[in-house]
């Protein structure tokens, strides 16, 4: 059985599950907590049942749009639904699931009257089983016939992708087939064209290739089976008994893998890896053992294991995960190994936020989140000390804190299995991120040396580069729309398809803004969506900004841009909305500060107007330019 072994045991889980229905307003938080425990297939099903007994539809308080996931396939999938929903719950997402009538996936995709169309999916998972995919392939087949069948199957699947895209404009996930067929030759199986085992391997390889072209996310069950062993995923007895290709014992992991992709598409993967230092990235306690006494690098298996973990962390940072350190130490001691230990793989410059003091870890994790300008729910915290882990879980339940083995040899594998940093694509932003955080420190140093704010800002040589929404920036745009909580006037969450809708709407505009200064490129830092509404009013539907560029006059400069774009649509007034959320109090007076007058409101929301006839562009230290397409 595949265990979700990085999740903590939560006690008394059984009793808390039984009482779930009596928890009243705390029900959702309690359900999320129970879903975050290390649970097996039976517990997963039980939790799903209890949640659905108590709650019929998505709780109103959720800011994230519910997920409507349709599974399409030809084998039994009913046993997988609860695990997918519970994996959603683990991420505070409400998930509705659907599956096609037995074997009818093709018809349902094409027929506008089908159950699939009525369901209106926001994500489609094409989960075709290996037996279905290899139907007709036999050792007696000629190579030419097998090649033709492969091309045909691949084209059929791509047509499904196109139908899914065209009809639903939603996330499409393709499950790669499990290698369930026993080989006929052995190690050189690939030399027998008509072997179903080698056929499935070829099909998976081909699907990987075309999925890149078609922008489809892959659910790589074949790779999981290679790691976990086929028997962990597939039980031939249950295939024969119930046509369950994925064994129910693996359902919790299956749900995890599916929901990681859905969450990643919504920009909800974790962003930063925060680690303790002593006995987490090196062996020993630097304050006691001294730099010379640390166990790190060649010479001992343990030292090699710590160095290997550092190496994994550095590789993560190179693909866009932010690194931070959080340690109970004197700062001087904590920094010393970075300066003096020859076997340190991680350099001081790899770490975007470094906190070493004697405050408690929850307080320091708050400081790290603030320093990095990201939410606590974007942090993964690794600490060898079970006491610290438990304290952080209790105080900051939104921080992911994996259970890790006492043996550092398994740290990296645990992080990988936990899938915190799942990504469906790598953007240039991701690659550049480490450099951006370094630039932040240099900016802070300049700020400390400049005597007044004006000369500091002038000295930054800031340029705000704007670009209309486009395909190239789509990933990052969607990520920001779904992840930005604080500087976000309306907290409206949009999918890729919604953003494409804005691109196509001539009475609307969507712009992404990049801030460049003498220390480097801050990346895309703000998004604005405007839409004409009624006679001459341009409604600012969405205005959000990354907090790391606060206090740099980006807001008034953005207003200049918005006003210019509104005039192009013949607008006479700008209408700005503020919808309060639990996290966006900082922008309550945003429109007042920019000279808008409040006109009306409903509930807690307020609306503000700015007359464009008398509008003079605000004077700022930020140059504004259109960024040319790539």
């Amino acid at each position, binding site marked *: *059985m595949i265990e979700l072994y990085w999740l903590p045991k939560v006690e008394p889980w*059984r009793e808390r599950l*039984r009482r779930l229905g009596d928890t009243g307003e705390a029900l959702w938080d309690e359900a999320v907590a129970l879903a975050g425990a290390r649970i*097996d*297939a*039976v*517990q997963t*099903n*039980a939790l799903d*049942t*209890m949640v659905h007994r108590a709650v019929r539809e998505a709780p109103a308080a959720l800011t994230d749009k519910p997920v409507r996931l349709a599974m399409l396939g030809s084998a039994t999938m*009913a*046993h997988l639904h609860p695990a997918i929903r519970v994996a959603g719950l683990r991420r505070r997402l409400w998930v509705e699931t659907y599956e096609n009538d037995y074997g009818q996936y093709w018809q349902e995709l094409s027929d506008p009257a089908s159950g699939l169309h009525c369901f209106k999916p926001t994500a489609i998972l094409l989960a075709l089983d290996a037996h279905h995919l290899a139907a007709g392939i036999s050792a007696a087949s000629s190579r030419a016939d097998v090649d033709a069948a492969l091309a045909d199957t691949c084209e059929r699947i791509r047509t499904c992708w196109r139908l899914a895209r065209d009809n639903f404009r939603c996330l499409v996930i393709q499950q790669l087939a499990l290698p369930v067929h026993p080989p006929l030759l052995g190690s050189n199986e690939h030399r027998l064209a008509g072997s179903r085992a080698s056929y499935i391997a070829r099909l998976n390889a081909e699907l990987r290739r075309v999925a890149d072209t078609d922008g489809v996310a892959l659910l790589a069950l074949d790779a999981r089976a290679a790691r976990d062993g086929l028997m962990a995923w597939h039980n031939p*007895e*249950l295939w*024969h*008994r*119930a046509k*369950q290709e994925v*064994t*129910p*014992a693996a359902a919790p992991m299956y749900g995890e893998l599916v929901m990681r992709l859905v969450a990643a598409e919504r920009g909800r993967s974790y962003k930063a890896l925060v680690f303790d230092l002593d006995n987490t990235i090196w062996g020993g306690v630097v304050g006691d053992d001294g730099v010379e006494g640390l166990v790190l690098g060649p010479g001992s298996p343990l030292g090699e294991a710590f160095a290997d973990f550092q190496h994994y962390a550095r590789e993560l940072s190179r693909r866009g995960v932010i690194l931070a350190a959080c340690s109970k130490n004197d700062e001087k001691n904590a920094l010393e190994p970075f300066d003096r230990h020859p076997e340190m793989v991680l350099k001081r410059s790899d770490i975007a936020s470094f906190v070493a003091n004697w405050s408690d870890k929850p307080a320091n994790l708050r400081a790290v989140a603030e320093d990095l300008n990201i939410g606590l729910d974007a942090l993964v915290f690794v600490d060898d000390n079970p006491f610290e882990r438990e304290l952080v879980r209790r105080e900051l339940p939104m921080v992911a804190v994996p259970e890790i083995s006492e043996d550092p040899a398994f740290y990296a594998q645990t992080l990988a299995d936990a899938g915190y940093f799942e990504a469906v694509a790598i953007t240039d932003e991701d690659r550049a991120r480490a450099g951006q955080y370094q630039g932040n420190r240099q900016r802070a140093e300049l700020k400390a040396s400049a005597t007044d704010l004006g000369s500091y800002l002038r000295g930054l040589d800031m340029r705000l580069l704007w670009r209309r929404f486009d395909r190239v920036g789509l990933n990052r745009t969607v990520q920001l729309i779904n992840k930005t909580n604080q500087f976000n006037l309306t907290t409206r969450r949009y999918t890729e398809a919604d953003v494409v809708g804005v691109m196509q709407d001539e009475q609307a505009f969507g712009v992404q803004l990049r801030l460049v200064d003498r220390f480097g490129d801050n990346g895309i830092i703000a998004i604005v969506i405007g839409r004409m509404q009624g006679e001459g009013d341009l409604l600012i539907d969405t205005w959000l900004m990354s907090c790391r560029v606060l206090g740099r006059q980006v807001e008034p400069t953005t207003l200049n841009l918005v006003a210019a774009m509104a005039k192009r649509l013949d607008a006479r007034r700008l209408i700005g909305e503020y919808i309060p959320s639990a996290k966006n109090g900082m922008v309550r007076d945003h429109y007042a500060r920019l000279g808008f007058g409040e006109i009306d409101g409903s509930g807690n929301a307020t609306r503000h107007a700015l007359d464009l006839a008398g509008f003079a562009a605000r004077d700022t230290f930020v140059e504004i330019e259109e960024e040319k397409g790539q």
Partner: protein
Amino acid sequence: MTEPEIYQALTTIFRDVFLRDDLDLRPELSAKDVPDWDSFKQIEIIIAVEENFGIKFRTREMDSLNNVGDLARLVASKT
């Protein structure tokens, strides 16, 4: 493992699978006595029992199970 120990472990499994804490296992209890005990729940029970006792059932053995008594005897023969 003694028979009472096996029954006790099975009771916990059945109560978790069916979310019914009033379920008492008797040897003659079978699928027709418990609402929701369908073929899927049957598989869930089997998987939980295999995991709990660290044993594996064969196809023929699973086919021969008619009630809780059969299951308890099968577990006893493998533990």
